[in-house]
C-alpha cells in the first residue's frame, strides 16, 4: 500500500471519528443541560460541526478512492451552516414567547 493511500485513509478515519464525537457531544448537551436556552448550544454548534466533519470525510473518500472530486457533500455542509443559525434564532424566539419564566436575567448595573 503506497504512502499516499495510507495518508488518505488515516485522514478520512480521523475526520470521521472527530465528526462522530462532536455529534455525540452535541446530543449529550441537548439531553443533559437544565434549561432550554442552555440546551440550544449543543445542537446548533457541536452537531453542525460534527455532521460537517462527516460530510468532508465522505468527500475525501470519494476523491481518493472513488470516482474523483465531487463537491456535492459540500453543498449539504454549506446548507447546514447557513440554516442552523436561522433555526436556532426562530426556536429562541418561540421559547421566549411561550415561557416567560425561563428567560435569562438581564445584566445588572454595578454602579
Amino acid at each position, binding site marked *: 500500500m503506497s504512502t499516499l493511500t495510507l495518508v488518505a485513509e488515516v485522514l478520512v*478515519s480521523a475526520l*470521521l471519528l472527530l465528526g462522530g464525537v462532536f455529534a455525540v457531544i452535541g446530543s449529550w448537551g441537548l439531553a443533559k443541560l437544565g434549561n432550554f436556552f442552555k440546551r440550544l448550544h449543543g445542537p446548533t454548534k457541536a*452537531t453542525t460541526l460534527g455532521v460537517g466533519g462527516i460530510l468532508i470525510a465522505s468527500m475525501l473518500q470519494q476523491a481518493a478512492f472513488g470516482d474523483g472530486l465531487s463537491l456535492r457533500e459540500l453543498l449539504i455542509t454549506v446548507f447546514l451552516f447557513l440554516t442552523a443559525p436561522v433555526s436556532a434564532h*426562530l426556536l429562541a424566539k418561540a*421559547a421566549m414567547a*411561550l415561557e416567560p419564566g425561563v428567560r435569562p436575567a438581564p445584566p445588572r448595573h454595578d454602579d
Partner: protein
Amino acid sequence: MIQTTLLLVIGLLAMALLLNLFRLLRGPSLPDRILALDTLYVNTIALLILDGMRAGSTIQFEAAVIIAMLGFVSTVVLSKYVLRRDIIE
C-alpha cells in the same frame, strides 16, 4: 481501516439519536421537542452519508439532501406556527 471506523462512528451516531429521542419524549416544553426533532434530522443526515460510504453507492446522498431541506423547512414552519398561529405573515 475505514470500514472499522465507519462501524464505530455509526455506533456513536446511533447513541446520539437515542439521546435526542430521550429529549423528544422528555422535554418539558414545546420548544424542547422542536429542537430535539431538528437535531434528529441533522443526525439522520450524517447516518445516511455514513451508510452511503459503507455501501459505496451515491443514492443515500440524494436522500440526505432531501432530508436536509425538508427538516429545515419543518423546523421553521413549526416555530413560526407556535409563535404566531400563522406561517406566512
